[in-house]
């Protein structure tokens, strides 16, 4: 594959970087990234990966755009209210960059469909809002050996970690089981400052790009936490947990299952 004149111009600021160059840009164009969730985190992730020229981007969500989303879900516009989030997102991504393919998966992820979804991509990004999905994404990626980026936000705080299955700690190494339903408030219950997903989502997109390029150090084995109120980032080293139920020495989770108890955690106030 040779970059066209238009591509050379479009991606010129990437190509100037020695860590990217024409070769790296081709890696991005050949890259396949799945974004699960087309909301607060998914918005900046989708916009930046599209602009960066990640060649195939899947985006999965079954939700529709709501007026209360627009304070932070910057890929959706007022005129999109009531339409499918993944179709709204795809339209903006292709408007930014018609050079890429965007696959809209208009579905919620479940134990039945996630393995097939994840299999088609090089890197997965968790931009979901509920623990059932977060644990399912972790399990599907660990079992498939698929690298992924975890992201979570609430009120003024966010956290993110990249998981390289087998090589670095996974989400269940930190949290073996989901919290009981309704134990932890969701953004729709407790609120979230609109710029927060912009920060965490952009960090997650950065990890996907670095993974595709093979450049730099990934946020693996380290949980990055961000407090917007205190304007402070912290990094907490996380070792693989020998007792992890999915990637530990004696795993008890060997097949995908929906965490039914956690499913409704974010249904209230939605």
């Amino acid at each position: 594959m040779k970059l066209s004149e238009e591509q050379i111009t479009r991606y010129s600021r990437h190509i100037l970087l020695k860590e990217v160059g024409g070769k790296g840009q081709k890696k991005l164009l050949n890259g396949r990234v799945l974004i699960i969730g087309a909301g607060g985190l998914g918005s900046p992730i989708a916009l930046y990966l599209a602009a960066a020229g990640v060649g195939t981007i899947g985006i999965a969500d079954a939700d529709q755009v709501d007026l209360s989303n627009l304070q932070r879900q910057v890929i959706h516009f007022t005129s999109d209210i009531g339409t499918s989030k993944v179709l709204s997102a795809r339209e903006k991504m292709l408007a930014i960059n018609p050079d890429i393919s965007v696959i809209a998966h208009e579905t919620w992820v479940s134990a039945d469909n996630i393995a097939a979804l994840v299999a088609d991509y090089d890197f997965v990004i968790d931009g979901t809002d509920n623990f059932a999905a977060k644990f399912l994404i972790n399990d599907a990626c660990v079992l498939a050996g698929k690298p992924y980026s975890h992201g979570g936000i609430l009120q003024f705080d966010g956290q993110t970690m990249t998981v390289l299955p087998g090589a670095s700690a996974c989400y269940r190494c930190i949290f073996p089981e989901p919290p009981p339903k309704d134990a932890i408030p969701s953004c729709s219950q407790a609120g979230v400052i609109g710029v927060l997903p912009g920060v965490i989502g952009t960090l997650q997109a950065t990890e996907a790009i670095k993974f595709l390029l093979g450049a730099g150090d990934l946020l693996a084995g380290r949980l990055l936490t961000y407090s917007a109120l205190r304007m402070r980032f912290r990094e907490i080293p996380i070792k693989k947990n020998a007792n992890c139920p999915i990637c530990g020495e004696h795993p008890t989770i060997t097949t995908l299952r929906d965490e039914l108890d956690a499913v409704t955690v974010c249904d209230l106030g939605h």
Partner: protein
Amino acid sequence: MNLTVNGKPASIAEENPLSVAQLLEVLKVAQREYVTVELNGEILDRGDFAASTVKDGDTVEFLYFMGGGSR
């Protein structure tokens, strides 16, 4: 005893050894039933909170669930 808690120095009146379960009470840690505790770089099993102890100079991290994102 002196500890490092979530990256900051913390002095508590209690002397060693103090169980992790007691430490959660002393520090009035939020979401006590769900918080994950990392002691000197190792994630503790929730079932070991009563048996694990902290001593002077230890590093403790409390890790919280954070859900939101999409909707």
